[in-house]
């Protein structure tokens, strides 16, 4: 049963290996371990965001405000850093997590307390958070020369030969893996997605759990805010505009069902990697970057078609597993 469950992730991993193989026929250095590490590092932020989105989608909700949250929180930490360069980076990261948490909690409260569908709530906060970034910054940018060297350098520093950004991604992946497979909260998240009514009878507080997943996605959005700004060294209102759909795309390609209850940490990570490899590979094999959008669109449609075939069977298997647990 467990082997069956891993089925889709294995197929996706195989697709990625084939993709890398195809690219390396045109550009052999692409499959170089060093280069693949670079691709992983480049995709770290998307992977983190996809994991945050995953827990929301698993509960049959959606968080469209993640990219706006990222933009707002990124601006907050960038302005903090520009005004007070002495604030140590770990404290800034905690600030980013806290600001993101507040924004996520607003979403979560509206969904939990007022029972407004999450797509409506986050559609609203999507525009509000980005607008708030403009109000906060007065439309100004925070450029690289205003950021402290530590602010920019922290994620680039190598630890055991791997950049800190990649370590953060690995840490987040590990935490989510523990959350989803080893905790009661993780099981509740799956249970709500599979059958919200049955979850209530099983003693799960559906509303509260949804509130918690929005807090998680908010914190992830905040963390990604700092990482994004310090990576691309510019904070503006336009940061990550429209990126919310890339995050959802990564989840969809990773086999996370928009109907809730189906999906895994491995899937989200591989889905993000798939998109990351495409965007990294296009320039080196001399395809215009303008092709990227159409290719990822086709990949999404293909992934949905393939996943829909498996879902009818897969859904039952997860249900049975949940019953047995």
């Amino acid at each position: 049963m467990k082997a069956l469950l891993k089925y889709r992730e294995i197929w996706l991993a195989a697709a990625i290996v084939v993709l890398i193989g195809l690219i390396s026929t045109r550009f052999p250095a692409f499959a170089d371990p060093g280069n693949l590490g670079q691709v992983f590092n480049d995709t770290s932020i998307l992977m983190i965001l996809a994991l945050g989105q995953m827990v929301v989608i698993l509960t049959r909700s959606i968080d469209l405000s993640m990219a706006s949250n990222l933009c707002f929180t990124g601006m907050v930490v960038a302005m903090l850093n520009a005004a007070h360069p002495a604030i140590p980076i770990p404290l800034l990261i905690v600030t980013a997590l806290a600001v993101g948490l507040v924004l996520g909690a607003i979403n979560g409260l509206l969904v939990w307390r007022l029972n407004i569908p999450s797509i409506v709530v986050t559609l609203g906060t999507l525009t509000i958070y980005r607008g708030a970034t403009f109000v906060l910054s007065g439309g100004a940018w925070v450029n690289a020369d205003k950021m402290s060297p530590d602010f920019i350098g922290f994620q680039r520093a190598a630890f055991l030969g791997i950049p800190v950004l990649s370590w953060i991604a690995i840490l987040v992946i590990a935490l989510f893996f523990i959350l989803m497979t080893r905790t009661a909260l993780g099981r509740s998240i799956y249970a709500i997605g599979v059958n919200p009514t049955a979850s209530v009878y099983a003693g799960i507080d559906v509303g509260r759990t949804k509130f918690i997943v929005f807090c998680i996605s908010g914190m992830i959005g905040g963390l990604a805010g700092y990482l994004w700004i310090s990576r691309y060294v510019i904070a503006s209102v336009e940061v990550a505009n429209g990126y919310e759909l890339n995050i959802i795309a990564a989840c969809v390609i990773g086999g996370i069902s928009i109907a809730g209850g189906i999906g895994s940490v491995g899937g989200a990570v591989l889905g993000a990697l798939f998109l990351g490899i495409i965007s990294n590979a296009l320039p080196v094999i001399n395809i215009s970057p303008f092709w990227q959008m159409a290719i990822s669109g086709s990949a999404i449609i293909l992934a949905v078609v393939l996943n829909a075939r498996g879902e009818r069977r897969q859904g039952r298997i997860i249900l049975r597993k949940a019953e047995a647990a």
Partner: protein
Amino acid sequence: MSDVPAPRHIPDRLDKPLSSAIFSWEALLVVVAVAIFAINSFASPYFLDAYSLSDLTFNFTEKGLIAFAMALLIISGEIDLSVAAIIALASTMMGMAVQAGADTPVLVLIGIVVGLGCGAFNGLLVTRLGLPSIVVTIGTMSLFRGIAFIILGDQAYKGYPESFAFFGQGYVWWVVSFELVLFLIAAVVYWFLLHRTSFGRRVFAIGNNPVAAQFSGVRVGRIKFILFCLTGLMAGIASVLITSRLGSTRPSIAQGYELEVITMVVLGGVSILGGSGSILGVVLAAFIMGLVTFGLGLLNVPGIVMSIFIGLLLIVVIALPIVWRRLRGVS
């Protein structure tokens, strides 16, 4: 127990008491619209002017046209996030046709046919393959706009014929623009379609319970397919209007429109979960969004700050009735 129950009289339509009309969603929207209109007239001396008010309509007509079809689609329980991308693709195709020397009637036809084709593609994926529309249209959104980017890159198409400018810039009578007339005609057509035909009843039935509708002989798949085609068609028409108004095509045209259209529909009282809503509500929501953006524009409020008001409006208008009901329930 031998009493045979008298045959029940089932009215065609329930007579609504006046109180329910007063507390209806549409009434709330009218109040909001009047309030915003009044605030605008006080805030800016330039607001109450025939030409200003005429300019105002351009803020919502194009999105409003799509919102009508989107309303039907959302009532039936589906959604289309690819409408803005359809606009981009249709506009790009029109631009290509101009380069090839096509004239105005051909351009309009191309815009509409491309829109319809894109809608049909979405519809086929959703109804034939049974895929969730939100994911399919996120995919086609990237695909359609991606094709526009492949064709255009960082270039732009210009040189549309002069007669083509009428659709987005022309006036039918005095300050009444062609776009506004089209918007009002579409409002009547969609109102009739949704509220006065059996097709409209079926749309509601599907949204409330697709399985029951299927067993009642409603061709769920076919109706949903038609609704996707209609949404594509309206996006094609909107594309003609926008391209004509701007006089040029870039692949980034109409970026983010899909969320504004959906905001309009939801603000208009259409349940995002499907099954309920009205065209009148959508018309009012379109006016409100136009009023807010135009009024704030007159006060030199930047567009990004306006979006805060739109977002707040969306959440507050949805939350108010819920809070209101809860407060009354407690006391």
